[in-house]
């Protein structure tokens, strides 16, 4: 069934302030050659969703530069394709929206002009190869009004620290949602709402209006929660790899998760559901005569003459002879000089570590090298 997509590009940035001070969370670099939004946009394109609105409220220059006209996701279309909605574009709008429902409000005329039966809504701080087509099929097969994707987490499973907990669903055996509540407990909830919804377009329009009228703030915990009885809210359980950007530690952990080849092939290596990204035409990576690289993910365009272990290197990183990098994520164009040693580091783009410097974080609190930092 024909569906259009809505992607939020600034969701939950509060959990990852270290990497979102000058970019939206959607534009946070990930897994060596991607940005977070690549997974959402590719998932939608793979589900034949060719009309996608990206809601961008803050710091969207690097996002807009990355997605451009949408070419890399084959989303340049004559009368639909990819559209970025920024605030202040509409008549009379004078301030940023303060919640998801207000942000959706600025899409009302766009939604009304559309012809698609369904709308798929997704956040972009999600790590995984989400099968939006399967969620749509589930939605249609179950004659749902709204379908929410969730993942099941056995109690006791240790999760990274989060400033803001995800929301939790109560789900019947048939998959019907009976309750949506904010994650308030100190242990993590069991059925975690993934902030991916499928919803009838006409229904969405009326729900947005209702949410505005009633002054609701949360799309799920206020607005949808008010309709567990009179709407057919269904829950789709996601089984594959899944991660949320709940903290810098989670960011490091989710990157390093792809040193596991099963995860790597599932999320970034499935040729039927590829993850596209903005291409850079980088040359291949060069390994020097004395390089020593093990259990690491390396993007193209790197020059590696030193030692790299259990790490993720983005495009154009240079590791000089004698440098040692362990358990770290180094974003594009970082340079690590000879004799430097890094352990549990997240280096933002263009960071430079000078000769002989030794820096180390720990798994639950990685050391952050800010963008273009020179130490």
């Amino acid at each position, binding site marked *: 069934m024909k569906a259009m997509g809505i992607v939020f590009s600034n969701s939950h940035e509060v959990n990852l302030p270290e990497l979102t001070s000058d970019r939206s969370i959607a534009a946070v670099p990930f*897994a*060596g*050659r991607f940005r977070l939004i690549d997974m959402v946009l*590719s998932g939608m394109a793979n589900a034949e969703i060719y009309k996608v609105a990206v809601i961008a409220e803050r710091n969207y220059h690097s996002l807009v530069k990355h997605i451009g006209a949408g*070419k890399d996701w084959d989303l340049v279309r004559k009368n639909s394709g990819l559209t970025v909605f920024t605030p202040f574009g509409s008549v009379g709008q004078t301030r940023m929206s303060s919640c998801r429902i207000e942000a959706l409000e600025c899409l009302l005329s766009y939604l009304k002009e559309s012809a698609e039966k369904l709308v798929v809504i997704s956040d972009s701080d999600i790590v995984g190869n989400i099968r939006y087509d399967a969620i749509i099929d589930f939605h249609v097969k179950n004659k749902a009004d709204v379908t929410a994707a969730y993942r099941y987490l056995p109690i006791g499973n240790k999760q990274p620290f989060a400033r803001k907990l995800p929301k939790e669903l109560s789900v019947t055996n048939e998959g019907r949602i009976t309750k949506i509540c904010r994650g308030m407990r100190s242990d993590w909830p069991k059925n975690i709402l993934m902030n991916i919804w499928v919803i009838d377009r006409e229904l969405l329009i009326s729900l947005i209006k209702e949410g505005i009228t009633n002054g609701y703030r949360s799309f799920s915990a206020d607005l949808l929660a008010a309709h567990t009885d009179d709407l057919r809210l269904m829950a789709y359980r996601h089984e594959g790899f899944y991660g949320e950007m709940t903290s810098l530690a989670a960011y490091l952990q989710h990157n390093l998760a*792809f*040193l596991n*080849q099963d995860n*790597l*092939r599932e999320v*970034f*290596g499935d*040729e039927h559901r*590829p*993850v*596209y*990204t903005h*291409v850079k*035409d980088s*040359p*291949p*990576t*060069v*390994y*020097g*005569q*004395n*390089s*020593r*690289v*093990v*259990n*690491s*993910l*390396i*993007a*193209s*365009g790197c020059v590696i003459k030193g030692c790299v272990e259990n790490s*993720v*290197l983005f495009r154009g990183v240079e590791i000089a002879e004698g440098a040692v990098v362990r358990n770290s994520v180094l974003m594009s164009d970082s340079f690590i000089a000879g004799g430097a040693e890094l352990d549990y580091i997240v280096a933002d783009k263009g960071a430079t570590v000078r000769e002989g410097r030794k820096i180390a974080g720990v798994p639950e609190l990685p050391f952050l090298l800010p963008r273009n930092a020179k130490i």
Partner: protein
Amino acid sequence: MYVKKKCVAMLLAGGQGSRLFVLTNKIAKPAVRFGGKYRIIDFPLSNCINSAIDTVGVLTQYRPFELNSYIGNGEPWDLDRMHGGVHILPPYLDAVGGQWYKGTANAVYQNMDFIERYNADYVLVLSGDHIYKMDYNKMLDFHIANNADCTIAVLEVPLEEASRFGIMNTNPDGSIYEFEEKPAQPKSTKASMGVYIFNKDKLASYLQADEQDEGSVNDFGKNVIPAFLQGGERLFAYPFDGYWRDVGTIGSLWEVNMDLLKETPELDLYDNNWKIFYRHNPAHPQYLGKNALVKNSLVGDGCEIDGCVENSVLFEGVRIAAGAKVKNSVIMDKVVIESGAKVNYCIVDAETQIGAEAQIGVEAKGSADVSVIGGGLRIAPRAVIANASIIGQDC
């Protein structure tokens, strides 16, 4: 309605490249892979767009499928345009029947309509067989400044090699007074690179005449350029002094790849102001496993390497199991090399599988010993393949 273009490029990509043996069984030579990421044709196409020449006709007729689909809409080279862009120009049928391209000149002749459509003043003729980075726009400025009818890019070659090339003999002002194809006694060392700029009207009339000459083989080097000289037109030699290689043989294909492994390669692929563009496949970053040992090598996206790799160029999606050893080799896309296999001085074409413990070229010592394994093959476990073998079927 066509927007006028100052200069249109015609890229000759019809050749089979039979001296590349099994590598061109299924694809045209310009589609042959090079340098871990690229195909040969990426170089002239990237040169065009970097030189602000945005209208390119690609003349194909031999096995064009893979080349056509590689070029596709031209997007990777920014040549997907409403006006101009890249167009595949195959042979066609008209009311009196069709004819295949008889030679390089005939291929352009049959497509003069394409050039006229853009009302181009100049025609740049390129070959799809060479690896080089060149600013054609500078050559065009040179052509215009000399008020030339035809300009030919030339490269200085060592005198002892000059007899392998088409040699231009020039006056002090750079004008050409004589062209000799593979002269036994070369008078100069200016070798033609197969890059020509013509004034469109002159080209049209000489191609017309060439077509009517029954004795002609309709080739630029053999017929058209000599005719221009004989006709007293203004021909100039444009000197080029960068890296330029004809990738005509297995040996030269292997060598241009190995050239990239030198400490400072002559061909700089890392220059952001002259990028070589290529068609991307979605892929994860390369993964080097717990047993990996990669030295002095180039590696593309999507590889998963757990074995040893030395002095080699690996293309995209190559898998090398723990215990396998690859040295002095060129391993193309999606090749799988199983555990314990040894590959030395070898070009392995795409999607071939090398079985466990297989041994290829273990005795090989240099470029003369290079073996070639065709694409999509299965080499059995424990198979032994000698130096300088050309393998075109499973074994």
